[in-house]
């Protein structure tokens, strides 16, 4: 995207003023280089989002924004139901409540080193990953509905994890208002044996080392120190969420709000029957994702018990980055209840927000930024300014710089695994082609994305993590 075509509000804030059908401006947070590298489609999609009814303040794009489905990935938009606001299946995405969960271990890099290979094998054996994998858990219809209503709270009740885990999750691990009756039989069928599976594509389970601390006070509040070992899990609502996305995209295309500038923006008024049904199904999928990450946490702890039995793993935080949540925000001086879509964007509540657990109240919400298997990941923390800037939102990852097709032409999976091993990163996978498609070089520079998020005041860097072991789906 040509930066000259945007109104430069500051070095990290770029505006597109409303024209034509746009109801609000579009605002992109990024530095000039990230803007230059950004797909022109981001502009088109963001300005389309700005035309939707009930949208408040602006349509926002985060520093990692790229071409998505209707909404750009890295897109944020909030709607007021009392002004005709809509909910969009594309604005949430197919992988509903996909997110990142990080576990803080009591280990340092030195403690891990002698057991690194054994741990990699134990994790690879213990956590089902990749196409066609199934979990140990088989749910019947009643258990499925209980899981869809209860989320991670259900999982903890079943013995997967401990109650204190729930303190470090958005909404304490359970989306209120789930309606399993609005989830199709097909969606449930895709999930009966997929609980506790990682999936494939850009999903991963990674053991990481804290390589750098940026904000000592925030790191201290999170208990983070240099060379600590972290485990991060990136996955979502598996087949159930994908099928709900498919089902409701079709329903919204046929029966949803008209006119829309692009079929991908299929949506329904929040106050309509279809809108309410989608919300109920989407919240059920959110609970599925939270339960899934909770079960995987249990499996990860089991793998550590086999190899490093003295290690304790506590939940640092769990964030979803494909969501629509009801939140209170200020618009023109009024506090309003808005439906905030974040597609490939992370919530970033600043210090003092009432939804934060007491231990994080003084510093703000952890924002977990996934990198790639060969490069860094980041832990950031929400700022006080992010509410005003983008409804308390920040970026979610590096974002692809190159298509999958281009990546497989450029890299070979086996060779990449060997190169990463030389650099001390152990990869475990069943698919060399999957590794090539996820080559670190196929992604944008996550360092630049994290730095831009900080410079734009959306979130502040706390720690940089480097990979040690990566299990790829």
């Amino acid at each position, binding site marked *: 995207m040509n930066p000259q075509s945007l109104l430069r509000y500051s070095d990290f804030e770029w505006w597109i003023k409303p024209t034509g059908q746009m109801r609000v401006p579009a605002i992109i947070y990024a530095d000039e280089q990230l803007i230059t590298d950004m797909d022109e489609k981001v502009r088109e999609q963001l300005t389309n989002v700005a035309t939707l009814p009930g949208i408040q303040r602006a349509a926002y794009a985060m520093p990692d924004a790229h071409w998505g489905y209707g909404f750009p990935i890295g897109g944020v938009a909030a709607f007021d139901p009392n002004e005709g606001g809509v909910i969009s299946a594309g604005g949430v995405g197919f992988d509903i409540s996909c997110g990142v969960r990080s576990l803080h271990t009591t280990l340092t890099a030195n403690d891990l080193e002698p057991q690194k290979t054994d741990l990699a094998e134990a994790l690879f054996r213990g956590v089902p990953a990749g196409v066609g994998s199934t979990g140990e858990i088989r749910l019947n219809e009643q258990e499925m509905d209980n899981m869809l209503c209860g989320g991670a709270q259900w999982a903890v009740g079943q013995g997967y994890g401990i109650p204190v885990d729930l303190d470090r999750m958005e909404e304490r691990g359970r989306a209120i208002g789930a309606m399993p009756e609005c989830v199709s039989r097909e969606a449930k069928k895709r999930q009966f044996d997929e609980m506790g599976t990682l999936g494939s594509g850009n999903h991963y389970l990674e053991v990481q080392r804290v390589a750098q601390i940026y904000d000592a006070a925030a790191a201290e509040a999170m208990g983070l120190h240099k060379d600590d070992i972290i485990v991060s899990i990136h996955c979502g609502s598996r087949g159930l969420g994908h099928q709900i996305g498919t089902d409701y995209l079709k329903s919204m295309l046929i029966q949803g709000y008209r006119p829309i500038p692009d*079929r991908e923006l299929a949506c329904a008024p929040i106050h309509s029957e279809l809108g309410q049904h989608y919300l109920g199904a989407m919240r059920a999928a959110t609970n599925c994702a939270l339960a899934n990450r909770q079960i995987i946490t249990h499996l990860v702890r089991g793998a550590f018990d086999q190899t490093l039995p003295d290690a304790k793993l506590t939940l640092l935080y769990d964030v979803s980055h494909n969501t629509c949540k009801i939140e209170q925000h200020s618009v023109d001086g009024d506090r309003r209840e808005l439906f905030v879509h974040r597609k490939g964007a992370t919530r970033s509540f600043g210090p003092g927000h009432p939804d934060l657990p007491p231990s994080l109240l003084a510093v703000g919400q952890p924002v977990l930024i996934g990198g790639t298997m060969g490069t860094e990941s980041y832990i950031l923390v929400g700022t006080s300014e992010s509410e005003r800037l983008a409804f308390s939102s920040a970026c979610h990852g590096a974002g692809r710089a190159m298509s999958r097709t281009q990546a497989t032409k450029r890299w070979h999976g086996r060779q990449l695994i060997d190169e990463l091993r030389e650099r001390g990163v152990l990869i475990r996978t069943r*698919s060399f082609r999957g590794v090539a498609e996820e080559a670190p070089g196929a992604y944008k520079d996550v360092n630049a994305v994290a730095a831009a998020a900080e410079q734009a005041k959306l979130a502040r860097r706390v720690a940089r993590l480097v990979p040690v072991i990566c299990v790829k789906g």
Partner: protein
Amino acid sequence: MAAWEHFSHGSDIGVRGIGSSVEEAFEQTAVALMAVVADVTTIERGEIVEVQCDAPDLELLLVSWLNAIIYEMAVRRMLFCKFRVVLAGCSLKGTLDGEKVDPERHQVAVEAKGATVTALRVTCDQDGQWLAQCVIDV
């Protein structure tokens, strides 16, 4: 001439089928979808699955067809290599032929989450060649 190919999308992958009829273009798009997931040449025929779908127009029918295949792949843990489509207006009956997934032999790269309406087109050119395409979220 029947053919399929992939095209680039920022984070996912586009599938395109070309044929002398809509049916053939849809069948080729299904092969392109399967090639996103695995090496199609390693998939053997043997187990037949029938699917049925309908939609208000041909473009949404393509999306429904591909989503029906994605659903069958997911719940049956299967991959397919041969497809047959019969159309009656905007109703489709499809036959999928394949086998149970073997992740290492098939070199599966990625799951398909769903077929999207991004870059969605079903068109016929002046020579009577049909083209059917959309982006798959993976």
